[in-house]
Every structure is written in C-alpha cells, then in structure tokens.
C-alpha cells in the first residue's frame, strides 16, 4: 500500500518537474495557433516591414514596423541610462560599500524590483511627464524619453543583482593576487574583477534589456502611444507591448485585428526567448 502511494507521489513529482517545459510549449503553441492566421491575409514581410498600423480601418493596414522601432527606441534609451548606472551600482555594492550599507542598498534595490509597473507608470505620469514637457518645451511630455527613463528603473534591479552576483563569484585569489602585486583596489576591480566577471555582467545587461522590451503598463501610460515611425526621442511612440495591451480589449475574437495582435505576441515571445537563452548560455558557461 505504501509502495503504491509513493509510486503515485513520485510520478506526480516527475510530472510537475516537466510542467515548466509543458507551459513554455503551451504558450508558444497557443500564440502560434491564434497568431499565424494573420498571414492568410498579409505576407510576413509586409507585416514586419509595413509602415502603417491602422488595424481598424477598411482595409486594415497591419505593418508593425512603427511598433518595432518604437520598442527599439525606448529600449535603447533605457539601456543607455541603466547599463552604466546599474553596473556602477553593482560594483559599488559588491566591492566598495561597507557591510552595513551593503545590506541597506540591497534592500533598496529589492524594493525597486518589487514596485508594480503600474505604480511606476502612475508616478511617471504625474511627476516625470510634466517635467519632461517643461524642460524640453514640448506639446506633450508623453514621449519616448519619458518611457526610457522610467524603464531604466525597471531594468536596473535586474542588472544590479545579476552583475553583483557575477562579481561576487570571481574567485578570491584573483583579487588577492592583484592586490599583492601592488595594484590599488580600483585597478584590481577594473583590470581583474571586471574582465573575470564579464560574461555574467553581459548576461545581466541582456536580462535587464529583456525586462525593458517586455514591460507593458508603465510604457503604455507614459510614451503617448502614437503608432508612427519615430524620428526623435522627444516624440510620442508606441511599443509592441503597449499595442497589445491597449487594443486587445477592443479587438473582436477571431478578427484580423485579434490575429495580428497575437502575431505581435509571437514577435515578443521570440525576442524574449532569444535573450533568455543567450543570457543563460553566458551564465552557465561562467559557472563551469
């Protein structure tokens, strides 16, 4: 009797172990199931490269190039802000900060990671957006740069915590060797610690960027949502994620618009999949 019970439990454990694979495949299949239908009416190059996104005009124009460029612009801005600050902060926490301050700073970073994106979006709307509007003398503060600044704050916790782990996992003897040779602390960090942890730091940057590309609510609330090809960072843009979130509510199930939004979802899924697999290879390679 006990044997039977344990047999069942162990099978359950095994099946649950496979659950993650099952769900990733399930997500991909259901995105494909709904999203691929759009290519009955529009070719793949027209979908990716089309300049116009007018999903509810007759006939619908479903080019997602403005959305891709919008996502890229916001992400690029966020990366430029968050990478130097994030890595700098990681070095400070891992190497420079005294022990008590270190714990405090880590808690602060965790706090930032925990703030829901809709709350950050709200704060951005009421503080950052009017600020951007007034310093650049713009008709609206809902611009790509507002989105970039806010998203940089969502990327930073990821970058800081993974880069800090990478620095922490550099063998102690590397550091001791450099210091014993007469290098200053900074020279040791710059010439020994950073190169030794470079693959982990690269993974940190990639995962931070992955977080930015996938971010939805904050970006929808503060980038203005204009589906046009962006020419400046001081202009409203619309990202891939915001398009899905803003339009799916109105799209009729089974319509071309509905299928097109799922196809946008496939694009996002593929991007995040590529980023996560690459980052994992960097992290995994380093552990060896």
């Amino acid at each position, binding site marked *: 009797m006990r044997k039977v019970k344990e047999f069942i439990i162990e099978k359950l454990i095994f099946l*649950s172990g496979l659950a993650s694979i099952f769900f990733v495949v399930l997500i991909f299949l259901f995105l494909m199931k709904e999203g691929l239908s759009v290519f009955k009416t529009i070719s793949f190059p027209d979908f990716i490269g089309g300049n116009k996104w007018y999903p509810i005009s007759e006939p619908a124009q479903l080019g997602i190039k403005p959305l891709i460029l919008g996502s890229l612009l916001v992400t690029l801005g966020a990366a430029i802000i968050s990478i130097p*600050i994030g890595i700098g902060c990681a070095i400070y926490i891992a190497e420079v900060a005294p022990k008590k301050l270190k714990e405090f700073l880590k808690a602060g970073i965790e706090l930032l990671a925990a703030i829901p994106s809709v709350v950050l979006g709200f704060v951005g709307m009421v503080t950052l957006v009017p600020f951007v509007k007034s310093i650049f003398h713009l008709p609206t503060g809902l611009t790509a740069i507002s989105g970039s600044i806010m998203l940089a704050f969502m990327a930073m916790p990821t970058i800081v915590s993974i880069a800090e782990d990478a620095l922490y996992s550099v063998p102690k003897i590397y550091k001791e060797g450099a210091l014993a040779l007469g290098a200053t*602390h900074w020279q040791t960090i710059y010439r020994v610690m950073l190169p030794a942890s470079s693959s982990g730091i690269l993974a940190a940057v990639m995962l931070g960027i992955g977080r930015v590309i996938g971010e939805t609510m904050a970006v929808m*609330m503060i980038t203005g949502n204009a589906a046009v090809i962006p020419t400046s960072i001081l202009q409203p843009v619309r990202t891939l994620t915001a398009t*899905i979130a803003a339009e799916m509510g109105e799209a009729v199930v089974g319509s071309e618009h509905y299928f097109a939004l799922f196809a946008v979802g496939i694009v996002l899924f593929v991007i995040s999949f590529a980023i996560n697999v690459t980052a994992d290879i960097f992290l995994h390679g380093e552990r060896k």
Partner: protein
Amino acid sequence: MMKKTYRTQKIAFFFLLVATLLIVIPVGIIVVIIIQKGMPGINWEFLSDIPRKGMRAGGIFPAIIGTIYLVSGAIAFALPIGLLAAIYLSEYSKDNLLTRIIKLAIVNLAGVPSVVYGLFGLALFVVFFKFGASILSGSLTLGIMILPIIITASREALESVPYSFREVSLSLGASKWQTIRNIVLPNAISGILTGTILGLGRAAGETAPILFTVAAFYLPRLPQSIFDQAMALPYHLYVISTQVPNVDEKIRYGTALVLLAIVLFMNLIAIVIRYQLRKKKKW
C-alpha cells in the same frame, strides 16, 4: 605617481557612489511621494466602500477583494505544482539533458513578457476552455506566471538542506519520499514560504496578464463565483489614472498607496523570514 593612482581610485569610487545614489534616491522619492499624497485619501470608507460617481468618489473595496481572490487562486494553482517541481529538481533529477531543458524552460517562463501571458490566458482559458473573462482564467494565468518564482525559491531552499540529513534518514530505513516529507521539507519550509510570499506580491501587482482574462472596468458588486469578472487593484489604478478624466488626486494616490503597501508588505515579510532563517540556521 602613487598619488595619481590613488586620485584615480578616489574619482572612480566617487562615480560608483553617484551611480548607486541615482538608483536609491529616486526609489526613496517615489515611495515618499506616494505615501505623502496617498495618506490623506485613506480612511475606512475608502477601503470598505464601492466606487461611486463613475469612480470619482467612494472607495476601492471591490478591487481589493478582487485582487485577494486572484492572488489566492494563483497561489492555489502554482504552489503545489511549483513545490513538486522544486522537489523533482533538487531530489530526483540527474545531471542530464532533460534537467538542463527544464532549467532553461524555467528561465524562459520567468522572462516571458507579462502582456504575452495575458494573450496566452485569453487564447487558452478565456476562448479555448470557454471560461470567459473570469477569476478562474485570471488566477490560472497569474499562477503560471509566478510558477518560476516559486520553483526557483523552493529549489534553493531544498538544496540548502545538508546532504547528511538525508543520509541519516535513509540509513535509518526511511524511504526516499519519507525522507523528503519528514526531513527535507520541514527544514526548507521558511525558504519555500519566502518564495511563495514573493510570488503573491508579484501576482498582486501585475496588470497586463489580467487585462483580458478577468479585469472588469467597473463592477459595483462583489464577484459571486470563480466564473465572474472582478475588479483588481492594479487595473483599477490604471483605469482611474488614464481612462477616467477628472478623478481626484487623492483617490489616485490612495489607490497607488494601497497597492504599493500590499506588495511591499509581502516583500517585507519575505525579507524578515529570510533574516530569521539565516540567524537560527544550525548548519
């Protein structure tokens, strides 16, 4: 020469400090602003009343209840599966290709954009299983989303139980499952709890996955069953700050404060448990 290298170090450390402050100070400001401007709006009526006058007055009670339902549903789904998956990875899996693929799948599940979870929930639960926009659909979607958090935290907790504990139990004649249930799990419980609470916090704060699977724009009554739509705090904050014009600032900030307080409170509990655990660890 010596002086110059030390000056370089001083300058470099100064910039590192500046980078750190550029993160920490805005976080502090964000939290302080929300508390300062949100507190005046918070009173018993705000927490216990339904929204009135097109959400420009009254309270946020249905949104709080909706979020509690959703989070409970998500955890009820994700905790058993996540815990068993963690047991598999820490106690049963061998160092082979399958394990590698499972770990990669967990990483990917954690990286899927939240709005894509929303699409997935819509396609699978709302449309394919015909659950409609309901608490059930929303909970399941959120549950899958927090699964990687629970698996990762539980696995770390299980793996941190020393191997000798297992050996002693096995050598006394206990079976593998008895060892896991009576020895490994009790010693890993705080770590598992921490992960569960962090998952709860994440589920409570997410908006995009519930947009098309459950969230109701305005629903002045409480949901009656798991097949009902419900309001939820994060979506409500989104609605009153972008979709409804002329909502009093007090209500917006008040809602943001309640949501932030719930999420941060859960994180605080998780941090405290982790701290206690580290202090009393015997091995």
